[in-house]
């Protein structure tokens, strides 16, 4: 690379020139920032201002630029210079917009701005231009695991977008659960009658599609590699192995029904006249094939009365059965009641529910069933007693508040779903390995799998053969914000393996996952990161000479990007990396860094801040703010002119997980009076863009107290704040409260060393 030449640009637009002494800022950039070129401009993001910078790059050989104007989140199109290293000093949202325009405030506001100029200069000098991941793969074939509704939809959607697809199905036929349905819940206006299950149509389209290659009776024997260059071995019907080069993977492995055999009180297994929902579909299909009405299994007589028991073995607060709702079985029971009513309106059909949940257009469907005379009753079933060829359903009617019963020829249990998500790799791994989640397991032990878990993907990753699981065994897939993003880059989950859902939702899900998988393949081919730092060209590099093989990076990486080589050193798979920096934050010897984000880029900013001596009564508070939620919230606080304390200095971090504790100790040693960390919510309802980043960061932070005690400092000086992007108005208040607390302590004894 050519010789380093640094430049600082100070903008005077947006009132910066009025509120701040920009000449003084330029002087700071020259003297403390030691920048080779320093320029002021009246309107830096204008064509003229941008041309000035462009000219310096082209003709003056500027390689590093500190742009001191607005937030790094603003004017990104104007300040787009991918060939040079660039930092942004946030003088607008970070300084003048959060400070009052008064004579008294002028001095502290100017000091704040000068610090941000120093920080921007220090940061950019520690950066280099990321070259992009060189170990890319350009395979653009999508692997879809599971040939049910979700899998078939994903395959067709990807093919429509012009991509090749390999579809692997465990059984001998495509269609999954949907193929077993007599009919499906309506998907079209007027949503009043069950309609054809649609499977035959999808299968025909797949068979006619030259882009889609189907393996039936096949499973995944081995998945190796990374996005853009997966090597997948498929165990095929003949017993052999087929090799496929794959760019990205969609796991659409669906669900199994909860085992009704675990509900002895409902007489399942004691009489053939008690069936689960799948059992009723089978009866309905058999009856339709023979052109007969649906008959009682016990004696083959047509069913005259049927009772549907909702929430059988699900939504169970006691912890004995499934705790969650399966999302589709209310609509399914409505549909199944219609099978009877449509063949003979005199058949008595009773649906016993506690809460009827009819997602989508199910409300119209529900009304249509009521119109046909299906009786809906709010009741909790306690027992089903076989009674010759009939059954007595004992239940409590919650509206009439009485224990009562109903006689029925047939009882249908809505039993709920268990995700078919493979091996729970976190249960296999020892939970004691300091990842901070073992200790809180006080929740009631829950019954999850009814089938023996077998790995689905057979990943060769160090972290285990399948994707990490969320609550109840569903694959972890950023439930709140980015539903298809799992914790294995380039591998997406779709359909009921991700969360309980019906066919319509599963098809929508599959389409979304297909689009994300395509994006991941394309980005991988260009050496760029996938979500949430899509397009980022940086990637972690490790200085192996310094590595102590402590394995923290390999264990903590939320995305399973880091394996271990034969000598047990970390082996980075850049294409699997999401660039969160959790490894960098974890590394105790600080040998992991990114070209444009490292222990040094942040450390240099911390050191660049001018810390006045203890007599100045001007404390310094460092804020390390998550760039995904907290930093935008701070920017928006500025846009809304919510004022906050002038003694804080904010440094954005990629994730709380990337915070290395050395930054905190360095800051405190350097005379800062307090350090505040802002990260996303963690735990079951996490909002962290990197899923586990904020949790891991907080775990590390929980050990900082000892350091503080060792330094003889109040432990409250380091504060962890959970911030959501919506905390625009409350965030400044919390900063101010914290600043007041810090001011109540004596000044840090480390000032001036």
């Amino acid at each position, binding site marked *: 690379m050519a010789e380093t030449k640094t430049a600082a640009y100070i903008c005077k637009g947006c009132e910066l020139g009025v509120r701040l002494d920009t000449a003084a800022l330029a002087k700071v950039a020259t003297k403390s920032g030691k920048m080779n070129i320093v320029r002021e401009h009246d309107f830096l993001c204008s064509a003229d201002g941008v041309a000035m910078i462009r000219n310096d790059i082209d003709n003056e050989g500027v390689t590093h630029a500190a742009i001191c104007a607005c937030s790094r989140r603003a004017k990104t199109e104007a300040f787009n210079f991918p060939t040079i290293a660039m930092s942004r000093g946030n003088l607008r949202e970070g300084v003048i917009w959060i400070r009052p325009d008064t004579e008294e405030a002028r001095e502290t506001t100017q000091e704040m701005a000068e610090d941000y100029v120093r920080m921007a200069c220090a940061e950019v000098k520690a950066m280099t231009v990321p070259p992009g991941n060189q170990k890319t793969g350009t395979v653009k074939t999508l692997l879809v695991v599971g040939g049910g509704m979700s899998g078939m939809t994903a395959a067709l959607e990807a093919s429509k977008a012009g991509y090749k697809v390999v579809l692997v199905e465990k059984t001998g036929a495509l269609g999954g659960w949907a193929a077993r349905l007599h009919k499906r819940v309506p998907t079209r206006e007027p949503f009043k009658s069950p309609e054809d299950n649609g499977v035959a149509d999808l299968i025909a389209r797949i068979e006619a599609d030259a882009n889609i290659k189907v393996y039936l009776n096949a499973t995944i024997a081995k998945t190796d590699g990374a996005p853009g260059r997966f090597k997948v071995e498929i165990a095929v019907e003949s017993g052999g192995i087929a090799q496929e080069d794959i760019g990205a993977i969609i796991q659409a492995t669906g669900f199994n029904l909860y085992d009704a055999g675990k509900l002895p009180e409902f007489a399942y297994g004691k009489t053939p006249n008690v069936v689960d929902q799948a059992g009723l579909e089978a009866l309905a299909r058999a009856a339709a094939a023979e052109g007969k009405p649906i008959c009682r299994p016990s004696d083959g007589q047509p069913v005259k009365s049927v009772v549907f028991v909702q929430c059988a073995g699900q939504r169970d607060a006691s912890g004995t059965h499934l705790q969650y709702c399966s999302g589709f079985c209310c609509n399914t029971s409505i549909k199944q009641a219609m099978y009877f009513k449509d063949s003979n309106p005199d058949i008595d059909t009773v649906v016993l529910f506690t809460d009827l949940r009819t997602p989508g257009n199910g409300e119209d469907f529900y009304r249509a069933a009521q119109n046909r*005379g299906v*009786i809906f009753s709010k009741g909790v079933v306690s027992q089903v007693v076989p009674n010759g060829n009939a059954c007595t359903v004992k239940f409590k009617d919650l509206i009439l508040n009485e224990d*009562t019963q*109903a*006689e029925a020829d047939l009882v249908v249990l809505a039993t709920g779903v268990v995700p078919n998500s493979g091996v729970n790799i976190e249960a296999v791994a020892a939970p004691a390995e300091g990842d901070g989640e073992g200790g809180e397991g006080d929740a009631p032990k829950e019954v999850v799998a009814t089938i023996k878990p077998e790995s689905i993907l057979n990943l060769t990753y160090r972290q285990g053969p399948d994707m990490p699981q969320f609550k109840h065994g569903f694959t972890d897939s950023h439930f709140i914000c980015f539903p298809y993003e799992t914790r294995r880059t380039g591998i997406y989950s779709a359909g009921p393996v991700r969360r309980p859902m019906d066919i319509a939702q599963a098809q929508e899900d599959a389409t979304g996952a297909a689009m994300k998988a395509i994006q991941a393949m394309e980005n991988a081919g260009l050496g760029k990161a996938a979500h949430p730092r899509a397009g980022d060209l940086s990637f972690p590099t490790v200085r192996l000479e310094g590595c102590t093989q402590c394995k923290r990076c390999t264990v903590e990486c939320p995305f399973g990007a880091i394996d271990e080589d034969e000598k047990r050193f970390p082996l980075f798979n850049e294409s699997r990396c999401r660039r969160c920096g959790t490894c960098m934050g974890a590394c105790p010897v600080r040998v992991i860094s990114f070209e444009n984000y490292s222990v040094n880029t942040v450390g240099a900013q911390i050191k660049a801040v001018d810390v006045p001596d203890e007599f100045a009564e001007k404390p310094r508070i460092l804020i390390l703010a998550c760039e995904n939620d907290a930093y935008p919230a701070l920017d928006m606080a500025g846009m809304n002119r919510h004022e906050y304390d002038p003694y804080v200095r904010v440094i954005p971090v990629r994730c709380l997980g990337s915070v290395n504790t050395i930054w905190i100790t360095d800051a405190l040693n350097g005379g800062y009076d307090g350090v505040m960390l802002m990260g996303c919510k963690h735990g079951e309802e996490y909002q962290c863009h990197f899923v586990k980043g904020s949790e891991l960061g907080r775990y590390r932070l929980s050990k900082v107290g000892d350091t503080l005690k060792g330094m003889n400092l109040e432990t409250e000086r380091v504060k962890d704040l959970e911030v959501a992007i919506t905390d625009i108005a409350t965030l400044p208040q919390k900063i101010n409260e914290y600043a007041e607390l810090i001011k109540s302590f004596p000044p840090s004894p480390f000032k001036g060393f």
Partner: protein
Amino acid sequence: MSDLNQQMANRYKNNFLKEIEEQAEMGEWVKMCMQCGLCSGSCPTNFQAGWDHPPQEIFMMIRAGKRDEVLSSGSMWMCTSCYNCYVRCPRKVPVTHVMHGIAEYAYRIGRAPKNQPTQHLSKTFWDNATKHGRVNEVKLTQSLYFKDGIGAGIKKGLEMKDVALGLVKAGRLNPLEALGMGHKCKDVDGIHKMLAKARELEAQRKGRDNKGA
């Protein structure tokens, strides 16, 4: 099978629901109730008057096949026709009309509670009004005052004496109505024919023979 067993066997069967649909005015709406309870919560008379069953329960009892309890219930007769329930029902069930329909059906087949005050008023008012095409206010008042016996009637009459005299003085009450005089409509025969025709049409619509009411 004993009576009780037969009753239990009929629970949550459609028999009674079908009966209500066929026989009671607006009875076809009972199946559309989704048991949200907004009608019961909206009813201004419910708690003060101590209904046995709010509308939500009556609807559920019909679907549960509790024929005796529903037909003999006083609840439907407590409705003041304020229409709060009808206005608020998210399913647009005409609750007020359904309650009146069930009440009318129960009365028609002789299952309505005896000596129920609103029922007595309804019957008295109807007979009074349809006889001459206009309400004879003095006779209507008399029959209500003397419902519970002569002593109670005289006592009530004396209590209301000043009101009555005031009305007479203001020309709002004609004492001669007590003798069967007072105002009548111009075409009493026409009114009677109209009512007979209405009954006939109603009977045709419901497919039943014209009895009672």
